[in-house]
């Protein structure tokens, strides 16, 4: 069994707000003690609603944010402890595709400049025809090279973002809601593009999304997050959820099939504040299967049968 490409252990990120002369300092825990291993060639999805920490996790994995606690290992090498110089060099092996195609490209750069930038940053010579090759790989015409972002549509901009991410042939790509800002018909194009690129370049993906339907279509395994903690890791896209939150999330995702209409049992209560996390399970206040133990202790992530779930009373 080969070692995982990316391993994350005990990853925690806390933010501090206030702390000036007149305001009390408050601490917000965005990501809490996350353990995750991603094998080469896998597509791992991370789903959750707003405030669950998935975007923060994406940035922690690339060290765009520094973890408060925890370790990240890339192909056996401790990524968290790298010096700035070694980090820059290691960044060649990882890349990120961002959610907003409108602000993720520098408006003053042409498409050619944008795709060439990774080479410039890493001080590598750009092979002849590299730009044309990347444009072709992402389905853009060669004429796009001299255009500016404002001349392109959202879907085209996102393709440029993908071309930039893949210019140096990274091994691991983090995709932060890459299609959330796009129309459904364009989203489908981009997803199929990502799929073919993964096969072509042998990539490993960490795919962040709020769209459970999309993640179940595209990903091999699914990590479900709630208020900074992992509550479940589904071993397969079609696995039945065992955590009550995952089940609620699944029930709330309407499928385009009128025959599948259902009555939703609404989750009661409100989401707790990340500044003031409750003592026990973060979901206890809203869970229909809550027990006494849930309110006092945080359930650990137990991995029996290859299906990890953090719940004292799973389905």
């Amino acid at each position, binding site marked *: 069994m080969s070692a995982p490409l990316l391993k994350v252990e005990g990853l925690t990120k806390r933010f501090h707000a206030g702390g000036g002369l007149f305001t009390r300092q408050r601490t917000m825990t965005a990501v809490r003690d996350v353990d995750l291993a991603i094998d080469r060639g896998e597509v791992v999805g991370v789903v959750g609603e707003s405030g669950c920490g998935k975007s923060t996790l994406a940035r922690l994995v690339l060290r*765009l944010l520094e973890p408060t606690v925890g370790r990240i290992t890339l192909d056996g090498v401790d990524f968290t402890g790298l010096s700035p110089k070694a980090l820059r060099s290691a960044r060649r092996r990882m890349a990120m595709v*961002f959610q907003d195609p409108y602000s993720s490209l520098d408006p003053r750069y042409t498409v050619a400049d944008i795709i060439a930038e990774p080479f410039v940053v890493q001080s590598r010579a750009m092979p002849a025809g590299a730009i044309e090759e990347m444009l072709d790989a992402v389905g853009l015409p060669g004429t796009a090279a001299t255009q500016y972002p404002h001349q392109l549509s959202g879907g085209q901009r996102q393709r440029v973002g993908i071309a930039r991410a893949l210019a140096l042939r990274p091994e691991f790509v983090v995709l932060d809601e890459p299609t959330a800002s796009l129309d459904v018909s364009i989203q489908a194009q981009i997803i199929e593009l990502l799929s073919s690129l993964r096969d072509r370049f042998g990539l490993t993906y960490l795919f962040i999304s709020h769209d459970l339907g999309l993640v179940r279509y595209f990903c091999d395994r699914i990590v479900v997050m709630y208020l900074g903690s992992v509550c479940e890791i589904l071993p397969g896209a079609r696995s039945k959820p065992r955590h009550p939150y995952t089940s609620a999330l699944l029930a709330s995702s309407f499928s385009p099939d009128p025959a599948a209409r259902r009555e939703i049992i609404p989750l009661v209560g409100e989401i707790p504040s990340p500044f003031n996390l409750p003592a026990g399970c973060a979901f206890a206040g809203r869970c229909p299967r809550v027990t006494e133990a849930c309110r006092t202790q945080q359930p650990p992530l137990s991995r029996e049968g290859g299906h990890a779930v953090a719940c004292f009373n799973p389905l």
Partner: protein
Amino acid sequence: MIAARHLTLARTIFRRPGGAIAGTWLACVVLAAVFAPLLTPYAYDAQVLKEAFQPPSAGHLLGTDEFGRDLLTRLFYGARTSLSVSSISILISVVCGMTLGAAAGYFGGAFDRMVTTVVDLSWSFPEILIALILVAIIGPGITGTMAAIAVAYLAQFARLTRAQIMMLRSETFIEAAQSLGASHSHVLFRHLLPNALAPVLVSAMLATGDAIILEATLGFFGLGAQPPLPSWGSMMSSGSALLFKAPWIIIFPGLAVAITVVAINLFGDALIAALDIKDQVRRGE
């Protein structure tokens, strides 16, 4: 590629009447300053005492001053002083201000707090006061004037740059550059500063107009360019005593300052409008 962008910008500016008129005047002033030796019939320090206090005539288009020097010549050479002093000192001010502001905005923390405090403190002093203090220390003359102007306007550019940098820092394309492994200097010089430049340039343009007035003010008090080097301010100073005897000595340099500063402001307005339109068109819809 860059030239094409600037050409369209220039066209947009000149399409507006304010921009066209102002641009033409400023071009004339610049030409007058650059080609002064070729355009003027006399030397600027040629004193012909028996021709002193002459009103405008065929021989002296703008008259002569109290030493019989040709006013038109002195006006053209005065343009050199005004333009060079103001533009060089604003240039120094922009470079230093942008550096400080960019560093403060990008790195934040204690450095930012320190820079902001100093900048805010200097912001509370009127420019003329700062200028006078500096000239008192350095001594009158062109060097003193340029240093004074540069320091007086530093706060403005530092603050503006800092605000722009802080706004741009949270743009996703900055994060994207960092994810590629870009160093701080790459992010600052290849992404942040180019995008922050536009408002600072416009501010610098308008500050040049202010600087001309500041230079003229210092010159009026004899603290600027020393005689016989002409400057519009010192010409106005010596002309003020002779207001009723030979009013043209103060009127022409006064008009020159006023029209040039107004022209700079009009041109700056046209530039802002042109950049806005360009930005609107650039954003596509």
